[in-house]
């Protein structure tokens, strides 16, 4: 080590700051410039860096270089998200706390996820089925992760955050691509082909199939949660001078092993069309989609089918020199059917829920460097009626090197069939029943943040927030006659405050370090009259802090090494010790067309637990080899 350090000191005098001379660039043709592989895609040049919100962007390049094999693993690259794996196909994803508490059947339901504008939030209990999140990672353009309220634009449930997964337009994914990966936990084969239809239109089609192995129970036996999924899909992009039309769709089927070693099934698909018209002063967009998701537990278990129909229109208008107005509205219908079991019933078991909304937002340029953004959405929720979701933000661009912003906004977590219509039984005895009087959970959020680039090599983003919650869900019991059945109430309130911060440090032209940390303090209390059953902990079982440190290196001979270390603080109740875990990937760009890699996730422990038993299994170390071939 000492020896290599000495050598390092010697060599570093030769190595530092030796970017190739700029004059070479000035002599290159456009074609040559277009073929230069750039050292790093600088985070600071992301268009969203100026938005007055805590936005972290996971780029295509970040994902391709990482060890991530699916969307939840890729989301771990965002320091403002906490991703907790509980089983082979199950993850809990949260921002700024409120990851839920399985003890109280409280789910991570304050975060919204969209794939290409299609909501993948389940209306049944408001939360995410991670087994429906798969996309071809090679085709992801970027993932925008917004921590904080986004309800004015994205609607209810964008309470603590919004995740936008955005795939590439088909004209950027032309040609053939094959991807094969094999390891102890993950085996995957995928292919994509893109071509043009005519002068105005391009398309791509893809398919993949994977198997992910089972985890272990706390007792050390198999958790029987291995699963397989096959998925295919397409995207076409067509346009004339002023219009564009995107049509895309996916379908999938999967099998999931269950604890009794029987198989559950998973089916689904979606079709989305988006038309846009670009004018000199205004843009108009209409989007419609259909989504179907069917999940079947083992024979005799719960099963459900959800059909979603969605139509949205919006217009963006540049009004005068200083106003930019965006307005629109939409209607969504969730038609679902649930197969009740003896212990878990929904009354009624099938239902059509209609969700409507209208919104308007204005970005007002107060000065060349100061913007004021204010807007409001009215959302007609099937259980609670019209709700206003306002938002106001002020941003100040300082010298082009820094942006400061402040925001105040309001959001809700809308009631669901699980809050209003559920019946849980033990034998003939009903111990929990839904509450038709259940109100939306509410938050009023205050944020202040800054994003700065103090030097060309360093950028950082810090946001401090204070969220004031009310009407949080509690479990209540009856006073008169009998204790049971229990029911859901809204008798908790409180606030959370905290910070999420991250940075990038381009140490030299081959190495970048990106640290990030989130710290949240929750102060919650029961309101008068609460049963206080299950205690304050029922609201959330969150660590007070979590952090990541990601290192990205370009090494000689067209190789790269990327590693991401994460720290998750202790969970209070149910309790779990803090832990560190590491994901890493070593890649070799053999030629323009071929990329080989060795990678692994959760490398520090052979097994570790991210949520205590019986809610979380022991997550197994995963290593794999992968080949990608473009032609």
């Amino acid at each position, binding site marked *: 080590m000492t020896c*290599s350090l000495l*050598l390092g000191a010697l060599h570093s005098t*030769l*190595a*530092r700051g030796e*970017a*190739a001379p*700029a*004059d070479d*660039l*000035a002599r290159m043709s*456009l074609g040559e*410039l*277009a073929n*230069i592989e750039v050292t790093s*895609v*600088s985070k*600071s*040049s*992301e268009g969203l*860096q*100026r*938005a*007055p919100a805590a936005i972290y962007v996971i780029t295509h390049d970040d994902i391709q270089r990482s060890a991530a094999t699916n969307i939840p693993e890729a989301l771990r690259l965002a320091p403002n998200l906490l991703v907790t794996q509980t089983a082979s196909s199950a993850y809990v994803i949260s921002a700024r706390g409120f990851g839920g508490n399985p003890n109280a059947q409280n789910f991570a339901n304050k975060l919204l996820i*969209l794939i*290409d504008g299609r909501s993948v939030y389940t209306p049944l209990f408001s939360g995410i089925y991670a087994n429906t999140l798969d996309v071809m990672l090679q085709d992801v*353009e970027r993932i*925008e992760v*917004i921590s904080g309220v*986004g309800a004015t634009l*994205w609607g209810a449930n964008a309470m603590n955050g919004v995740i936008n997964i*955005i795939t*590439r337009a088909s*004209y950027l994914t032309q040609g053939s691509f094959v991807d094969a990966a094999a390891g102890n936990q993950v085996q995957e084969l995928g292919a994509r082909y893109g071509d*043009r239809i005519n*002068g*105005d239109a391009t398309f791509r089609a893809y398919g993949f199939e994977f198997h992910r192995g089972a985890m272990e129970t706390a007792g050390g036996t198999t958790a029987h949660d291995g699963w397989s999924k096959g998925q295919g899909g397409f995207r076409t992009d067509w*346009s004339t*001078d002023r219009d564009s*039309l*995107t049509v895309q769709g996916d379908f999938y089927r999967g099998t999931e092993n269950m604890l009794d070693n029987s198989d559950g099934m998973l089916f689904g698909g979606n079709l989305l069309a988006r038309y*846009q018209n*670009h004018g000199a002063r205004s*843009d108009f967009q209409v989007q419609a989609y259909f989504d179907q998701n069917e999940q079947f537990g083992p024979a005799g278990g719960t099963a459900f089918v959800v059909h979603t129909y969605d139509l*949205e229109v*919006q217009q963006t208008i540049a009004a005068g020199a200083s106003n930019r107005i965006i307005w629109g509205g939409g209607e969504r219908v969730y038609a679902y059917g649930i197969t009740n079991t003896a212990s878990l019933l929904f009354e009624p078991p099938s239902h059509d829920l209609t969700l409507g909304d209208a*919104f308007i937002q204005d*970005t007002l340029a107060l000065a*060349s460097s100061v913007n004021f953004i204010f807007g409001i959405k009215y959302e007609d929720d099937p259980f609670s009626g019209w709700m206003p979701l306002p938002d106001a933000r002020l941003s100040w661009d300082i010298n*082009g090197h820094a942006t400061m912003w402040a925001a105040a906004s309001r959001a809700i977590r809308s009631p669901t069939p699980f809050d209003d219509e559920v019946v849980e039984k033990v034998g003939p005895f009903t111990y929990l029943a839904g509450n038709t009087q259940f109100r939306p959970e509410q938050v009023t959020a205050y944020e202040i943040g800054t994003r700065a*680039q103090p030097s060309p090599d360093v950028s950082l983003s810090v946001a401090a927030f204070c969220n004031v919650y009310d009407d949080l869900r509690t479990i209540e019991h009856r006073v008169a006659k009998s204790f049971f059945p229990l029911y859901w109430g809204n008798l908790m309130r409180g606030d959370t405050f905290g910070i999420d911060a991250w940075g990038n440090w381009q140490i030299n032209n*081959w190495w970048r370090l990106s640290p990030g940390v989130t*710290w949240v303090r929750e102060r919650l209390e029961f309101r008068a009259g609460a049963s206080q059953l299950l205690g304050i902990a029922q609201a959330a079982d969150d660590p007070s802090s979590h*952090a990541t440190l990601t290192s990205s*290196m*370009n*090494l*000689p001979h067209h190789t790269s090494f990327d590693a991401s270390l994460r720290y998750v603080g*202790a969970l209070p109740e149910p309790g779990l010790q*803090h832990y560190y875990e590491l994901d890493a990937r070593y890649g070799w760009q053999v030629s323009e067309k071929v990329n080989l890699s060795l990678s692994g996730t959760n490398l520090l422990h052979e097994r570790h637990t991210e949520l205590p038993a019986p809610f979380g299994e022991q997550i197994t170390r995963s290593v794999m080899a992968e080949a990608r071939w473009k032609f």
Partner: protein
Amino acid sequence: MHSIHRFSRCLSAGAVLLQLVAGSLAVIAPAHAADEYSEDAVKAAYLYRFAGYVDWPDQGAGSEPFTIAVLGSPAVVQELRHLLPNLSVNHHPAEVREVRGLHDLGRAQILYVGAGHAGILRTLTPVQDHPMLLVTDEEGGLDAGGVLNFLTVDRRVRFEVSLTAAERARLKISSELLTVAVRVLGGRRQSRDGCVPQAAPNSVDGDCAVREARGLPHDSPSFGAGRRR
């Protein structure tokens, strides 16, 4: 709090370790690093080179310098300051000017609008008093009024072209530039006529029809930029 304290102690220990690792890795790393360029340097070079592929109607008169104005990207300004001295465009010395808003553009021939700032172009008067090549750097940049818009695809800096915007600015774009573009919007006749696929050794797509494929993925910006998904 205890865990945070321990975590910060771990971090500082980690920082020391990282410096050690950095030192030892420096032995192996530089060989590859030397022939790489930063994204901003490549963009700066593009901005200079674009001038050779575009005709301005009032070009050639007077002895004024050829000015590349930059809004919202100090990094690109810095790269242009390295690059431009001793370079000229059509015998005019090339210079860079960092601008804060549309009011101090002067008579710049090129305006580069850094990522996240393209919205400002919507406030330009429809007929500008002098022809200017507007270069944007974000998704939807062409819709905002950009003539050229940078895209980063597979770690390469590429660009797309709006011939409609070029016509509006009274600029003529050479067919060679169109050949390298990822896609060309508008002015269909013109682009088809000017299409020279065999002269595109470095074009990834290298095909006229592909270049004409259009359709902006209107994904994105949230709050400030105001698009909803």
